[in-house]
């Protein structure tokens, strides 16, 4: 059997006595783009935070690419091939866009020598070339030397995504990548994600835009009050009464 | 044509201003007097000034500038012990004499042939004070020490000078308390002194510490005689203690009412400072710096200096040589000789009586 890209077993987490995640188990098989959906406050971002190590788990295990990362320090987890983006965009505002990309590459480049190479003296240092290429792919090359401070929301959103991909991870967790994007930008995003999938990257996506989920995700996990209430292809999950009641509503399909 | 150039390091800004800001007037007075009488060897004295702000780093800059740019023959200053510690090595390398007017930490001139001080070691001063108290048969059955811990001079008074002198005068040292230079609250120290209740408290401190200690002693109702050295020789001290500090007894190298010479200096100084809107009573440093100019003048005269730029190195050395052997020069402060670079001169033991300094005794060296 192939190991899953990400496997979560019996996960529990509460904050100050309030249960945020209860006995959650699910798997993201390699190459199967999966969506994590559910009402606001269901615990989706919390799952991401537990997987990336922002919080410690109360109980349960998390395995990424066959490695048990449950108690691994947050800093080390990205080296097991699992990277993420942020619901509230988090860019390093003192750095330029290109520099943000260079930080994103760090995990592939951790030797002391890499740390102390004066890469800035070489205009075409290979890491810079790579980062520029990645920016260009997302149509961001014109922003490369801007400090990220006051860039438009849509641009920042894409930067966040590109930075996550530069870690070279095989699993990408994206927290509401399409939120706040207009339809044309959403289309571009979809193309971008499809390209990543074609490269063999496994995606775990939290998203409220069901059309978007429909167009890229094979499997959907639905959370409510920290518990899994349904799992399966979206078309099937959609019919689930519990899901309709808690999440989708009488949505025009 | 050539003037005889003296460098002068002032401390006109920084922590010592109020002790040092009238020094310049004393220097100018002395220089004008000497020049009015025809100068030295037919040449006029010219003073080049530099404000060091009491900072050792700026003081070395000043010294370098006197040595390399101004062609000074000798240097008046620096002011404080800290500055002396950094400028004396430079002076030694440059072959340029310096004479400090205020630094009184023990042993500063040791190992330097170009370093001089027209100040008296605090050991000798305290010795004179205790001698005077003994001669006057004032109570001295028990003693304690009080000192500032973070100041060179104060700490050595409190930990070395006072214990040694008490022993010499067979006064049992019953305890000691210390405080920080910046301390404003001496209540814990005085509470301890209250328990010891000594006849004499040997104090090592700048004037601020003396004022605060006196006030706190009064507040807690402790009566004792505080004695100290030149570090608290501030003419305004009784006024600053504002009713406290009766019987405070110190040694100083300058007392305005000592004799005609000192009175004349005091009067002339007062007219000049008044015009400048400054403190009119000269302090010990004013007197010292005034005499430093005369001491240099005497040394230059004896060395026959010409101020010729070509001979500057030789003349600097000649001045140093004359100073180090100078004996019994009749200066304004009294008769001055040099041993190991330090001036040996009379000490006036003065006491606060009725909110005023009064002379208790004059102690001549030996």
């Amino acid at each position, binding site marked *: 059997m192939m190991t899953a890209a990400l496997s979560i077993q019996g996960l529990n987490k509460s904050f100050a006595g309030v249960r945020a995640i209860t006995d959650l188990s699910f798997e993201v098989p390699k190459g199967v783009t999966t969506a994590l959906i559910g009402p606001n406050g269901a615990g989706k971002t919390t799952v991401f935070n537990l997987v*990336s190590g*922002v919080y410690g788990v109360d109980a349960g295990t998390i395995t990424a690419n066959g490695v048990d990362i449950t108690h691994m320090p*947050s*800093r*080390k*987890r*990205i*080296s097991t091939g699992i*990277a993420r983006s*942020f619901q509230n965009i*988090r*860019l*390093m*505002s*003192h*750095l*330029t866009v*290109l*520099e943000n990309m*260079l*930080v994103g590459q*760090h995990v592939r480049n951790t030797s002391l020598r*890499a*740390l*102390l190479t*004066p*890469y*800035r*003296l070489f*205009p075409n240092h290979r890491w810079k070339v790579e980062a520029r290429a990645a920016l260009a792919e997302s149509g961001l090359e014109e922003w*490369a*030397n801007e*400090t990220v401070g006051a860039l438009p929301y849509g641009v920042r959103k894409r930067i966040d995504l590109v*930075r996550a991909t530069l*870690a070279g991870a095989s699993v990408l967790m994206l927290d509401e990548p399409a939120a706040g994007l207009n339809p044309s930008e959403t289309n571009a995003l979809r193309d971008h994600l499809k390209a990543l999938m074609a490269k063999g990257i496994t995606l775990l996506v939290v998203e409220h835009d069901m059309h978007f989920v429909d167009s890229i995700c094979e499997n959907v996990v639905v959370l409510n009050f920290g518990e899994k209430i349904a799992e399966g292809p979206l078309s099937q999950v959609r019919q689930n009464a519990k899901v309709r009641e808690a999440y989708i509503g009488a949505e025009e399909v | 044509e050539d003037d005889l150039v003296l460098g002068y390091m002032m401390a006109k*800004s920084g922590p010592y*201003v109020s002790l040092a800001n009238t020094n310049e007037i004393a220097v100018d007075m002395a220089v004008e007097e000497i020049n009015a009488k025809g100068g030295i060897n037919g040449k006029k004295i010219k003073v080049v000034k530099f*404000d060091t702000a009491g900072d*050792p*780093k*700026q003081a*070395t*800059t*000043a*010294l*370098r*500038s*006197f040595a*390399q*740019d101004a062609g000074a023959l000798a240097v008046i200053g620096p002011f404080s012990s*800290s500055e002396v*510690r950094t400028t004396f*090595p430079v002076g030694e*390398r440059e072959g340029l004499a310096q004479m400090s007017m205020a630094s009184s930490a023990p042993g500063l001139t040791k190992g330097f042939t170009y370093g001089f001080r027209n100040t008296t070691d605090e050991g000798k001063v305290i010795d004179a004070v205790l001698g005077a108290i003994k001669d006057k048969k004032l109570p001295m059955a028990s003693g304690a020490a009080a000192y500032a*811990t*973070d*100041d*060179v001079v104060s*700490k*050595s008074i409190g930990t070395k000078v006072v214990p040694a002198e008490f022993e010499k005068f067979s006064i049992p040292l019953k305890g000691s308390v210390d405080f920080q230079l910046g301390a404003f609250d001496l209540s814990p120290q005085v509470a301890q002194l209250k328990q010891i209740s000594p006849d004499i408290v040997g104090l090592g401190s700048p004037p601020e510490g003396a004022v605060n200690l006196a006030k706190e002693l009064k507040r807690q109702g402790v009566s004792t005689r505080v004695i100290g050295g030149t570090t608290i020789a501030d003419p305004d001290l009784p006024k600053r203690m504002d009713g406290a500090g009766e019987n405070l007894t110190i040694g100083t190298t300058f007392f305005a009412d000592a004799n005609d010479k000192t009175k004349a200096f005091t009067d002339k100084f007062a007219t000049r400072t008044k015009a400048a809107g400054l403190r009119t009573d000269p302090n010990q440093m004013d007197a010292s710096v005034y005499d430093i100019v005369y001491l240099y003048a005497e040394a230059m005269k004896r060395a026959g200096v010409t101020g010729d730029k070509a001979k500057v190195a030789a003349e600097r050395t000649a001045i140093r040589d004359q100073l180090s052997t100078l004996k019994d020069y009749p200066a304004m402060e009294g008769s001055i000789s040099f041993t190991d670079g330090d001036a040996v001169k009379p000490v006036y033991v003065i006491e606060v009586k009725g909110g005023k300094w009064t002379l208790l005794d004059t102690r001549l060296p030996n």
Partner: protein
Amino acid sequence: MSGYLTGVLVVLAFNVMAAYAVYLPLAAGQLNLGIAGFMAIGAYASAFLTNEYAWPMWAAIPVGAGLAGLTGLLIGIPVLRTHGIYLAMATFALGQVISALFLNLEVVGGAAGYPVSDYVGPNGVFLAAAAVVVLMLYLSRTRFALYLTAVKSDPTVADLLGVSVRGIQVAAFALGAAVAGFGGAFYAHHYNFVEAQHFNVLLSVFTVLYVLFGGTQTVWGPLVGAAFFTLAPELLRASDQWRYALFAVFIIVFMAIRPQGLVTTSLLRFARRKPAAESSEAA
């Protein structure tokens, strides 16, 4: 060179070294208000070795710097658990404690200070400062500098991207301490005297002041800040007792107009764009 200029430039050289000692951790968002303590360690340690064990200066000075760096490393590990203003206060307290320890350490003279026998001339001091500047310029071109800014900007995300936030912070802090110790060691051997009272809070605080004045966005800021703070009071010499008051007014007004400090990324970029409309990322 005139004696005056030499004296001023020597002071500048020491200020530059202190400035970079503050700058390194500051670039990673850590305000070190105890830099004087580390300078004291370098100064006393190297002076002790040359005085008591007759070590040659060229060996004693790096050892002094190393000892300061080591102290920075050992103390940095627990202290850097604190953040922001707490960290600033922890380093402030540390500086106070170190200087108080030396004040009471009788083997190095205690309050009386410690005369140093060996002498390093102005040129040696200039060389030392130049070496520090070159090292900083070099570092500013590496990923290390990039991570410093990343850690300052968003430590949480830097951590999730795999950057060892603690490692970078401790390294910056310890390296800064070593640079301070290096400067301190030269200080001792140039002025031939060290006293604990010299390495006080105000020294630490003023160093931070000119680093911020120069600007922390680029590696040039500390240099420019130190130069300004050394030279401006000299230019104001004529104004006598007003000089520090005028100086303070100037700082206040300047910082109100230009809070980012004197040298900023955009300033450098602007300057660079003029001659060549080239890549603007190096700064």
